[in-house]
């Protein structure tokens, strides 16, 4: 028996849905092998994880809290990746958004009307995120500088700048040396819906819908799509490539920045260590798994968050390392990348002993 990989004559529509699901299932199977090696029952572990992530209001709340920054950064990454702009700087855009939000919450509440503080903090976060993505976008669009390097480097700048602030000038003088700013005044707190779930999640849902609409129903979205698919065609059609890339990246950074601002005003209510925990990197996995579809980003973000929260829970309830969730997160991407092959190719199994006429193609 031999196997041949053959190019399909048309893209399988089914494969577009099946591949992510199959990747998830494969990851679970691969993960259960690891769990079996460590001597625990994978089924009870997975059950405990699901229970830990969704089993109670508290669990659900924690999952959604973790999912919110992943949704927003995932959306930011997805729009950049659609332009073939490899923005791996969502982390920095998220953190810089958090810095701006914190700065406005801390220092503007006495100057401006109190009702204006929170909106300004959020808008400030968006602008900061947009700036942080706009710099590499402009450098790339007008000077041809590689965006994956600049976006990555700016992550370090943002993260280290944040720690400089909460260790240094912004440190709470009454904080007993704890690295973090003072708690924000109450008017700068982002309202919560239930548990710790805050309005950031609503922003994420609205952003996903708006992005879907922009990409599928507007002229600008159509231009972005053409640029993403073929820059030469876009140029020939009179679409302004540089300008569009910069504008799309401002939007991308703004969404991640909103994530950062929501996180500081909604959860910690201060700028402190723990803001930069890698949401912006996980966002890359989220965006790919969602195949850059904004609506799918929401669901994938919840799934990834559930793995994390569930992983924490098995640590408590079963005494397993919390890394189980992280391992599964990583494991999902491999079948996903391998699986995307099957949207354009298919596997044919050839049995030399049967005449070829007996073969039926398993094509839908």
């Amino acid at each position, binding site marked *: 028996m031999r196997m041949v990989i053959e190019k399909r004559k048309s893209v399988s529509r089914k494969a577009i849905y099946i591949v992510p699901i199959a990747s998830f299932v494969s990851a679970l199977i691969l993960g259960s092998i690891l769990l079996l090696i460590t001597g625990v029952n994978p089924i009870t572990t997975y059950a405990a994880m699901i229970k830990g992530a969704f089993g109670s209001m508290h669990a659900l709340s924690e999952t959604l809290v973790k999912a919110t920054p992943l949704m927003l950064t995932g959306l930011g990454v997805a729009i950049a990746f659609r332009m073939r702009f490899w923005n791996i700087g969502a982390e920095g855009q998220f953190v810089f958004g958090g810095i701006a939000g914190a700065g406005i919450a801390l220092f503007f509440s006495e100057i401006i009307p109190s009702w204006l503080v929170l909106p300004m903090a959020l808008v400030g976060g968006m602008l900061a995120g947009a700036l942080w993505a706009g710099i590499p976008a402009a450098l790339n669009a007008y000077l041809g500088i590689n965006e994956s390097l600049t976006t990555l480097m700016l992550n370090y700048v943002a993260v280290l700048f944040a720690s400089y602030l909460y260790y240094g000038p912004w440190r709470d003088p009454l904080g007993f040396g704890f690295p973090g700013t003072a708690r924000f005044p109450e008017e700068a707190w982002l309202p919560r819906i239930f548990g710790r779930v805050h309005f950031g999640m609503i922003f994420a849902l609205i952003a996903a819908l708006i992005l879907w609409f922009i990409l599928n129903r507007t002229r600008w979205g159509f231009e972005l799509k053409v640029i993403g698919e073929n820059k030469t065609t876009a140029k020939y059609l*009179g679409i302004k490539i540089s300008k569009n890339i910069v504008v799309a990246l401002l939007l991308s950074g703004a969404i991640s920045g909103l994530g950062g601002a929501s996180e500081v005003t909604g959860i910690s209510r201060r700028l402190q260590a723990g803001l930069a925990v890698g949401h912006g990197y996980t966002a890359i996995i989220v965006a790919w798994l969602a195949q850059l579809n904004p609506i799918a980003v929401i669901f994938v973000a919840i799934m990834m968050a559930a793995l994390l929260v569930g992983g924490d829970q098995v640590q408590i309830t079963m005494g397993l390392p919390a890394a189980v969730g992280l391992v599964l997160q990583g494991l999902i991407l491999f079948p996903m990348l391998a699986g995307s092959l099957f949207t354009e190719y298919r596997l044919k199994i050839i049995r030399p002993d049967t005449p070829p006429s007996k073969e039926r193609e398993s094509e839908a």
Partner: protein
Amino acid sequence: MNPQSSKIILEMRGITKHFPGVIANSGVDLTLFDGEVLALLGENGAGKSTLMNILIGLYRQDDGEIYVRGEPVQINFPSDAAELGIGMVHQNFMLIPRMTVAENIVLGMTSLPFVPDMRKISNRIRALSEQYRLKVDPNAYVWQLTVGEQQRVEILKMVYRGAEILILDEPTAVLTPQESLELHDVLKVMTSEGKSAIFITHKMDEVMVFSERVAVLQNGKLKATLKTSETTPQELARLMVGRNVLFRLEKEMQEPGETVIELCHISAKDDKGLSALEDLSMVVRAGEIFGIAGVAGNGQDQLAEVITGLRKPTEGKILIADRDCTGKDPLGMIKAGISFIPADRIGMGIAGNMDISENLIMKGYRDEPLSSKGFIRPNRIIDFAKRLIDSFRIATPTPKTRVKFLSGGNIQKTILAREIDACNNLLVAMYPSRGLDVGATETVRNLLLEQRSKGIGILLISEDLDELTSIADRIAVMFEGKIMGTIKSEDADIEMMGLMMAGIPLEELTNDVFEKSESSTE
């Protein structure tokens, strides 16, 4: 040589291959004799490539058998085909530019020792290249070679690996006439030494020159297998498309109207900063096809780019309908009513991963009815796409099919549909029928003529003199960025155009003729 008397080296029997929604091959029988060149003739999409891909192990047939030297064989992988001595020279060469000829030839051979003796390999290549008149230096880097030389490397690669059956996929498409003649000699030597070749083509004249026998495919079925000496190009054309095609073009007499575009003393540089257009002036009028002839690379690309706004002229003026449009960007030129059918269809003309409806709206999406106030209107887009698919007879399962899955002819029809629909002034068409089969070529030419009668000005850049003389009204010949002369197509004389293409201006030619006639009267 009489092929009937020699041995059958390869036989394909009843080959059938389905793809979703398409029957690519249906019960095809093909026989190849020792020491012959068999032409495999058919339109684009007739199933030639699928059949050959089955033979070299890229696809597997659903039904049918293959026999090599009388033995039934299973060809599942390209390596199986190589073991059987079957090698293919693809249209797009599979060479690595930064490696030498010798390195490319042995690259990937499993029998190679860990440290190959490159000197021995080079000597063997030299011997083979002498034997088969495939002149090429084994130590040259591939990037240094011309296209014709690269093709020789591909052929040498097959010969070096012991191929007895060579498949050549439209080998002359990339060659100059001179190089084609050399290829002909090479094949002669090879077949005289007992190798056989299958020559894929869609050009009848090549069949007549290169092959001993010809197999004609149409719609995935074998139409006929004939001795080349006993057939004619006309018969082959009829078999290929199932009808007589001495291009039925309907060109009516008509007086051209007002000037749609005027270039005044245009100069432009190419990407390397070298002069590409020099002091070029021309006028295209409404309802005329203005042809540009010339060997590719004499400034045609830059001329089209300057007119479509993709390149800024360094000097001169462009007037469109008497308005100064010099230095406008592509969008400005589109708005001035210029449409463009680019030479690079796949790379520039379409976005392959987007569907047909999206590719069709790429010019019209900015305006009503396809969009309004910045929003696109999906229902109107589908209606619009269906209308164009119908009226331009684009063969596609649905308007939502990705364009890259269409055949070359249908991709070109998609581009034409979009550009013609959006055009209201000047249509710039670059090599619009290059690489297309007979049927699609006729469609393309008729579409251009139709636009002409609608009063559109057409700038037709082509290498095909037959195309120019049959549909253009006037023809200008370009050489090194200058126009050597403009003639009416009814006065077009192939020899005269050839001289202009080689750089002799029209005035000198007519003066010569004048002087000659004067001296002869003396």
